[in-house]
Structures are given as structure tokens and as C-alpha cells.
């Protein structure tokens, strides 16, 4: 009987010790665990996975370090997924002490992505350079041929040929710029510089060409060749610039992701952004003008944001649903702690939430969907053993209570 009484009132210090063991022991071993993905997480994954490359998603950091173990794996996993899908990310938040955690997730995600794609990127840049070189060779041939023809007779047709070559070149450079600008800002700058340089050079060439018309002598061809050689030098410089660009990371701040920082006034901000983001965030977290950030050029309000994900340990998701979702039709996904998740099921069922990641389990399910074992998957065994311990304690306490009750009734 003494033992049963003890079971109904185990010293809390013993419970604390058991909890330490339950959390620590699974961390010492790697336990492979298969995950069943729940519908809310699957829906969240699908909502992001089906977005077109280049779409903008907004991540709202509405938690701080107290919820790091549950919410950080979520933002890490979704950032990773977004970068893989070539989505652009806007980070902001309603808890100032949580925002650096979001920034950390983005920086790490970008660095990892860049590392994984460095070789691929170098190959693409090399290919672009080869294309440009081939085009340049063709262009030089055309120049020489034009010069040879011109030596006999200059007509407006030659002028047109030259104009067409120049515009063709610029078009290709522009196209290359569009293709690569999202990868590195430097590359885009390099291409732009090369384009401007060539344009200047082409104008000079035309001037010399016209000078050649007046001279009508054999020195004209020499002038053309010198112009071509100069152009060749310029192309070499351009290729060197490309090489420098290739050394840069692929996912860059301002091009692929931005951090708008913290502004006070949760509801005012959420509603106000429906009209213009710049009314509240005219500068980013480092005081850089938002208009100078490349990826923000075409982003003004919720119409330009495909999906919003709020990572929260409080009522922030409900605010997003009530003001951004209900009023502006913004698609919203919640990434919340296990305690908050039950509050959001009504919104999930009504379709006001496109998906929901609840607690460490939700984060680990998302990790399994993107096929990346991260913080959540590593933390799940410890959480599971802690849950089992709690279940055991509850059952032991209840069974001891039953025994005590029966013995009291029998008067023993």
C-alpha cells in the first residue's frame, strides 16, 4: 500500500530526471523513422510546390527563440523548398526578437543552395560566354565583309546591316541578362556594362564608317580591323566579368530574398500592405531603400504575393487570416507550435488556411516531403520519448489512484 501511495505522488524531481533521460537518450542515437504525412502538411507543401518559378512568397516570423525548436525547422524547410522552386522570398515579422532567426534561416538556405549549385552555375556561365564568343566571331566576319563591299560602294543597305547586327547583339545580351539577373546582381551589372560598352563602340564604329565613306581609300579597311580588334578586347573583358560573376553565390540578397524587418502595429501593417507595402516598409532591415532592391521592383501589395506563410507561437496566423486573407484574398499557410495548431483547425477546414504545419511533427513531415532530414526529423525521437514518458506517468498515476480508491472503499 505504501508503494501505491508513493506511485500517486512521485517526487517531481524524479519526474524531472526521467524527462532529462527521455530527451537526452534518443539524441545519442540515430533512429531512422518513416513519416506518415498528414493532410494539412501535404496541402501546405502542394500550395508552395505548385507555384510558378519567380513567384513571390512572404514569410512572416511571428515567433522568437522560445519557439525555436518547433518553428525554426519549419522556416528552414520552407525556405529550402522555395529556393529549389526558384521562388522569391520576402521576410518580415511582428516579433522583433524573432526576425534575426528568419534572417539566419534565409542566409543559411541561400548559402547551402549556392554551394549545391555552384558547378551547375559555372557551366551555365561558361556556355553563355561561348555563345557570345561565337556570335562575336560571326559579327567580325560580317564587319570585314561589309568593309570589303564598302570599299567599292557604300549604300544605306550597309548601314541597315550594321544596325541590325548591333540590335541583334544587344537583344541577346538583354536576354542573357534576364536569364541570369536573378542569380547574381554582379552578373547582371556585368552584362549591362558590356552592352553599354558595345553600344558605345558601335556608335564609334559607325562614325568611322562614315569617315571611311568620305576618305574612300584603302586605309578604310585598316580602320575597320582596328575597330574589330578593339571590340574583341572588349569581349574578353566581358568574359572576365562573367568569370567573376560565376564566383558569386547564386541566391543573393535583394535579388532572390529580402528582409523588410519589423514595424510596430500588427493589424495596421497587415491591412495597410494590402494597398502598398512601401507605406510601411520603405526601407529594409538594413536601412536600404526598398525601391533599390531588385526583387521588390514589381512587388507592391498582396496581388503580387502568391502565398504567405506565418510562423507563429501566438495569434498572428489568425490576424493574417482575418485581415490579409478575408479582405484581400491572400493565400495563407500557418506554421505554428503544437500548442497553437488546434486553434487553427477551423480556418483549415473552412479553406481560409491553405495548409498547416503543427509543431515539430508538422515540420518533420514537411522535411520528409522535401526529402531533407533537418532539425525536426532529428528532434522527433526525443519528442516521442518525452510523449511516451508523459503517457506512462499519466497511466501509472491513474492506476495507482484506482488501487488506492478500491482499498479505501474496502477499508484496508
Amino acid at each position, binding site marked *: 500500500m505504501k508503494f501505491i501511495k508513493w506511485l500517486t505522488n512521485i517526487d*517531481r524531481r524524479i*519526474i*524531472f530526471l*526521467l*524527462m532529462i533521460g527521455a*530527451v537526452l537518450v534518443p539524441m545519442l542515437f540515430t533512429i531512422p*523513422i518513416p513519416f*506518415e504525412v*498528414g*493532410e*494539412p502538411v501535404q496541402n501546405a507543401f502542394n500550395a508552395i510546390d505548385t507555384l510558378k518559378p519567380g513567384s513571390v512568397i512572404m514569410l512572416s516570423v511571428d515567433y*522568437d*527563440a*522560445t*519557439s*525555436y*525548436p518547433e518553428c525554426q525547422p519549419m522556416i528552414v524547410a520552407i525556405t529550402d523548398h522555395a529556393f529549389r522552386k526558384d521562388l522569391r522570398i520576402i521576410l518580415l515579422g511582428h516579433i522583433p*526578437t524573432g526576425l*534575426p532567426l528568419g534572417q539566419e534561416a534565409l*542566409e543559411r538556405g541561400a548559402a547551402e543552395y549556392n554551394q549545391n549549385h555552384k558547378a551547375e552555375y559555372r557551366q551555365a556561365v561558361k556556355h553563355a560566354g561561348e555563345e557570345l564568343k561565337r556570335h562575336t566571331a560571326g559579327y567580325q566576319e560580317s564587319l570585314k565583309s561589309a568593309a570589303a563591299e564598302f570599299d567599292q560602294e557604300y549604300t544605306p543597305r550597309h548601314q541597315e546591316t550594321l544596325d541590325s547586327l548591333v540590335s541583334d547583339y544587344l537583344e541577346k545580351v538583354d536576354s542573357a541578362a534576364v536569364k541570369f539577373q536573378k542569380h547574381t546582381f554582379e552578373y547582371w551589372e556585368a552584362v549591362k556594362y558590356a552592352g553599354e560598352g558595345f553600344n558605345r563602340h558601335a556608335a564609334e564604329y559607325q562614325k568611322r564608317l562614315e569617315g571611311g565613306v568620305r576618305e574612300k581609300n584603302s586605309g578604310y579597311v585598316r580602320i575597320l580591323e582596328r575597330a574589330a580588334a578593339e571590340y574583341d578586347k572588349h569581349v574578353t573583358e566581358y568574359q572576365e566579368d562573367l568569370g567573376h560573376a560565376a564566383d558569386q553565390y547564386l541566391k543573393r540578397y535583394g535579388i532572390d530574398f529580402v528582409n523588410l*524587418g519589423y*514595424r*510596430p*502595429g500588427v*493589424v*495596421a*501593417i497587415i*491591412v*495597410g500592405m494590402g494597398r502598398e507595402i512601401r*507605406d*510601411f516598409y520603405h526601407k529594409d532591415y*538594413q536601412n536600404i531603400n526598398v525601391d533599390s532592391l531588385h526583387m521588390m521592383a514589381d512587388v507592391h501589395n498582396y496581388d503580387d504575393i502568391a502565398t504567405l506563410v506565418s510562423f507563429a507561437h501566438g495569434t498572428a496566423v489568425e490576424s493574417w487570416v482575418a485581415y490579409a486573407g478575408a479582405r484581400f484574398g491572400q493565400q495563407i499557410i500557418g506554421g505554428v507550435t*503544437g500548442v497553437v*495548431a*488546434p*486553434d487553427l*483547425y*477551423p480556418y483549415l*477546414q473552412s479553406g481560409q488556411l491553405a495548409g498547416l504545419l503543427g509543431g515539430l*511533427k508538422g515540420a518533420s513531415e514537411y522535411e520528409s516531403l522535401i526529402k531533407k532530414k533537418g532539425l525536426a526529423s532529428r528532434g*522527433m*525521437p526525443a519528442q*516521442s*520519448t*518525452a*510523449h*511516451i514518458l*508523459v*503517457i*506512462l*506517468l*499519466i*497511466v501509472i*498515476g*491513474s*492506476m495507482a*489512484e*484506482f488501487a488506492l*480508491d*478500491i482499498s479505501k472503499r474496502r477499508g484496508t
Partner: protein
Amino acid sequence: MKRTLPLIITFLAGVFVVVTFFIPREPFGSLEQRMLVWASILGGFTLLLGIDSLIKHHGRKLARREKDWFYSLVTLLGLFGTLAAGIVTWAKYGTPLELASLNEVGGFFWVYKWVMVPLQGTMFALLAFFIASAAYRAFRARTFDATLLLIAAILVMIGRLSMGVIPATLVLAVLLVAAGIHRLLIRKPVFGAVLAVAGVGLGALVLAFPQDAIRLAPQVQEWLMSVPQTAARRGILIGVTLGTIAMSIRIILGIERTYISST
């Protein structure tokens, strides 16, 4: 006048916000936006008020050497220390939020990463211990309602396990059988029999079809969350929302005045 003016301002602001919400056309749209910007600016000033209040409260405690004054000292040191770290980083990099300060002792992000994050994390981690202890003491299947609550809670916990579903479910089955026997012994035969049979059935099914049990556990949890839990939650939500609307109308019309004064 001291009370009337705030009531008039509240009435006008309240009506204006409601009107602009439902009429997005100009000039209401831009006026609403302007008011939202004002609200955000006012929100910024509340932070200043908070800091002022914090300094006054703890400064007074410290000056008078009141009980637990040492904690006030730590609070103020934390506040001004973080401020100093921010100013130093700002002076060095032109912004206090320079990530490079993460690796500099005393830098703003260094303080954030190595002081604030661990402190907050530690505080929250303590919950695991208190929850375990509290659950053990409070969750007892003493009554019918408590037993139902307990079964639902354990099923939800089992559904969120990534391992150990079978032993945890067997433990639940044992609890059901024990609760059933207890009810039978205290002469509550119907409920006792139901619980005992449910426990034996659950145990037998789990042992006979362990893989199906592992597969079904998250689905049972999902059903509990999305059907009974959501039904109750939705009822509460509707009640809270109606209450909020009623309270807002009372405040706008000046019926509810407690926000002006505590008396």
C-alpha cells in the same frame, strides 16, 4: 471635458474605420491607409512608453532596495547592455543589425545569439518538465468526463509520435482495462464493462495488426483534431467574435468606458 473628449475621439475614429473598411473607393481608401500608418507610428511610441515604464519601475525598486532588487538590476543591465551593444555595432557598421557582429564579442547579434536566444530557449524548455509533472498530477481518470478527456489526450499524443506507437497504445489499452475494472468494482457495471472491453479490444487489435495501428494512429489524431476539437473550437470562436463585436460597439458608442479610467 476630460472624459468627453476621449469619448468623442473614440466614436469618430471607430465609425471612420468601420466606414473606410466597407468603402474602399477614394477618398476613403487613402484615408484608411493614412490612419493605418498613424496606427503603426503610434505602435512605435508604445514601445517607448514600455521602455520608460520598465526603467521607472525597476529604477525605483533598485533605488529603494526593495525586495528582489537584484533582479531589477539584472533587468536594467540587460536593457542598457543590449542598447550599448546596438550603438557600438551601429557606430562600426552603420547599422545595428549587421550580421558580421554575430562573431564579435559584445556585438549586437552576438548578444542576441549567445545571450537572448539561449535564455528564451531555456525558459521555454523548462515547460517540458513542468508539463510532465503537472500532467502526472492532474490527469487522473477519476470520473467519466476525466476518462474521456484522458483517452482523447493520449490518442492525440500517440498520433504525434514518430516511434513507439505500439507500446504507447498498449499502455493506453492497459489503462482502459484498469479503469474498467475499477468501475466494475465500484459498481458502475455498464461504463466499467465498456471500458474493459474497449481496452482488451484495442490491445488485441494492436497486437494483431501492428502495422495498421502505426498507420492509423496519425489518422485518428487528425480526426480528433479536425472533427470534435474543431467543432468545439468553432463554437468558442463564434462566441468570442460576437463578444468582440458587441464590446467594440459598446466602446464606439461610449457605453463601455473602463478603458478611460480604471475607476
